[in-house]
């Protein structure tokens, strides 16, 4: 459906950025063939180009559109469903040279960023201005552009929401090379269709983002986490809706099991502060005075103990926070490290159904005789479930993993959940998305895609492609 790139294409594209920022064939680093999930396959780009400004992005897209060449936009490559992988070859447009924090506007509390800025960089820069970059996805080496494109969620979504809730303005380049400015620094906007919100979460299928204006918040003075142990995961998860009803809104409610903590300990070579119990919740609060924090801790701890928690441990200093959050932050890598291959399911269900879903995954693990690990955001119903290959033969693995994934997505659908809470669809979850939405909805999405990208050059084969 797309022709192969020719020498004239390489020359034309090199003329835009300079040859130094173009790589072809052997010059292309193997990292560009995949994201974090090699399980979904590796695909070779024919050319990787790194634009340095919006004008260059515009010229690249105009050329690709005219020549009908596929363009897959890529950030830091930390995605988990193949969103940035060029399944039809063609051009990979790496945004990582456009990595400047253009402005921290303290007056209006906005950050203006190029898409290649890393999450860890904007978090730190905002903190230097005593401001909070509220979205908190676990992968801090992800790019902000990638976060916007997948509408990344993260651990603080319980209180602060997800990436979309903080995007106030975007500069985007459409497939034909035209540049649009959507929204701005203003906090409200009822002016016509919100194209900006269509772009957020579109995984590079509608436009290429070249500038992002993000809302910042005042930084809370203190953050304390409670590590709450339980005899069973069910007990832990059953408590979550009750914690949500307390007057103080928790910033984070995560769940984890002993086995995953053990994986993280092995991976980091660092002990978790408590490992006597089978299941844990981490509940975090942010506050501005010690009294306010004490009241929050008291309410949550009393409720937890009353509802059968084994204890409530308090993490109130930098060292203590790092002892639990370093482990939590390493879960994905630790699980990956503990096996030979894995597939992941990022479904989201109602918060009162998380316990049932986890039990389902546990039963499935026994039934299929395969190791399944899970952890996730109990406070917003977003689960991360990993099916692990371990020593299974390739043939057996393929059979089992498909059966497990089909069963997990079917269960989520039966619970009226969604296919992806925060990782996106990419090409890996397309079929499951298709199954979960009405045909009319898919058709409408296709018409939107065609309106933005009539020649279908932007990230073909992804989301609904």
């Amino acid at each position, binding site marked *: 459906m797309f022709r192969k790139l020719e020498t004239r294409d390489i020359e034309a594209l090199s003329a835009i950025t300079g040859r130094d920022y173009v790589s072809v064939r052997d010059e292309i680093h193997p990292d560009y063939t995949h994201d974090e999930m090699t399980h979904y396959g590796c695909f070779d780009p024919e050319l990787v180009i790194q634009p340095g400004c919006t004008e260059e992005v515009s010229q690249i897209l105009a050329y690709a559109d005219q020549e009908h060449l596929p363009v897959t936009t890529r950030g830091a490559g930390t995605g988990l469903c193949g969103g940035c992988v060029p399944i039809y070859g063609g051009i990979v447009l790496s945004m990582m040279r456009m990595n400047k924090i253009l402005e921290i506007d303290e007056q209006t509390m906005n950050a203006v960023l190029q898409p290649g800025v890393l999450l860890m960089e904007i978090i730190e820069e905002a903190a230097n201005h005593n401001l909070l970059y509220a979205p908190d996805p676990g992968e801090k080496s992800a790019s902000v552009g990638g976060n916007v494109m997948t509408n990344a969620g993260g651990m603080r979504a319980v209180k602060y929401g997800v990436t979309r809730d903080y995007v106030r303005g975007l500069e985007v380049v459409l497939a034909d090379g035209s540049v649009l400015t959507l929204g701005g620094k203003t906090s409200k906007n009822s002016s016509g269709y919100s194209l900006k919100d269509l772009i957020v979460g579109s995984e590079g299928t509608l436009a290429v983002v070249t500038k992002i204006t993000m809302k910042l918040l005042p930084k809370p003075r203190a953050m304390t986490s*409670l590590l709450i142990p339980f005899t069973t995961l069910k007990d832990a998860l059953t408590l979550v809706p009750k914690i949500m009803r307390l007057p103080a809104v928790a910033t984070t409610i995560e769940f984890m099991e002993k086995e995953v903590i053990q994986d993280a300990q092995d991976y980091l070579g660092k002990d*978790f502060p*408590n490992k006597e119990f089978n299941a844990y919740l981490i509940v975090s609060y942010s506050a501005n005075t010690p009294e306010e924090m004490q009241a929050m801790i008291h309410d949550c*701890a009393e409720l937890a103990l009353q509802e059968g928690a084994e204890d*409530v*441990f*308090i993490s109130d*200093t*930098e060292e203590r926070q790092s*002892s639990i959050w370093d482990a939590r932050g390493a879960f994905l890598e630790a699980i990956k490290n503990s096996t030979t291959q894995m597939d992941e399911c990022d479904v989201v269900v109602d918060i009162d159904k998380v316990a049932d879903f986890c039990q389902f995954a546990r039963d499935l693990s026994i039934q299929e005789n395969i190791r399944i690990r899970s952890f996730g955001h109990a406070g917003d119903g977003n689960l991360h479930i990993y099916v692990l290959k371990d020593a299974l033969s390739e043939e057996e693995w393929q059979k089992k993993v498909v059966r497990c994934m089909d069963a997990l997505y079917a269960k989520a659908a039966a619970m009226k959940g969604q296919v992806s809470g925060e990782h996106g669809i990419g090409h890996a979850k397309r079929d499951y998305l298709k199954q979960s939405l009405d045909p009319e909805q898919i058709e409408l999405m296709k018409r939107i895609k065609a309106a933005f990208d009539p020649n279908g050059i932007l990230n073909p084969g992804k989301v609904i492609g």
Partner: protein
Amino acid sequence: MNIVVCVKQVPATQKVEVDPVTGVLKRDGIETKMNPYDLYAMETALQIRKKTGAKIHVITMGPPAAKAVLQEAFALGADEGWLLTDRKFAGADVLATSYTIASGIRQIDHVDLILCGKQTTDGDTAQVGPEMAEVLGIPHISWVTELIDADDQALIVKQDLTEVEAVARIPYPCLITVEKGIFQPNLPSYKRAKEAADNPIHTLSAAQCRTLDPSRIGLSGSPTQVERIFTPTHDVKTMRLDGPEAESAAKLVAILKEDKMWEEENA
């Protein structure tokens, strides 16, 4: 068996200002926490208690508000608290501090083992532990990185002496100071804190410490003269070496040699 863990309340942040006139840390109004190294001493005590059933006393010197650090120790598992608080203790250097805390420990019956963190994060001298042992006339081992064994007679510990490690059996009564990482400290427990609401905290003034020589405490008992305390200036210079790798590497070596950060044996 009785273990005494020495703890100190320190500023919870690294951004503590120094009074430019007096050179004293401005402690008023800033949040405090238990000295991070003391958490390792506390966890070591808890591990020894698992093997020996020892009682854990925790002692601190400070203003009345330092009671909070003893309550935190209760939430970690300590049984009984001792708070040395008296205006006469103020202005103590390491020698007077060691003498004062040692005098406080003398008020506790049948102490077998004293545990300290290697150092505090505000004073950073790492001297108070060993000096207390000298005052009390008991053996001590600093920089303990591993507790190999413990019973009701002695400890077997590993000590890190930078270039060598030493393993020693040390009979009670004795004092050890422990390194970061000897154990992963548990977090304070809300449940235990509630249960420990009535745990005794004994307040000790200078007059209440039997055997204490008033001339050896506070400012008058401190031979150290602090000339000036100042915040060190940070001087970070960023340099970028462009060009071919071999050329940049040679430039880098030349710069490092010039700054005396390169020895020929490294080459």
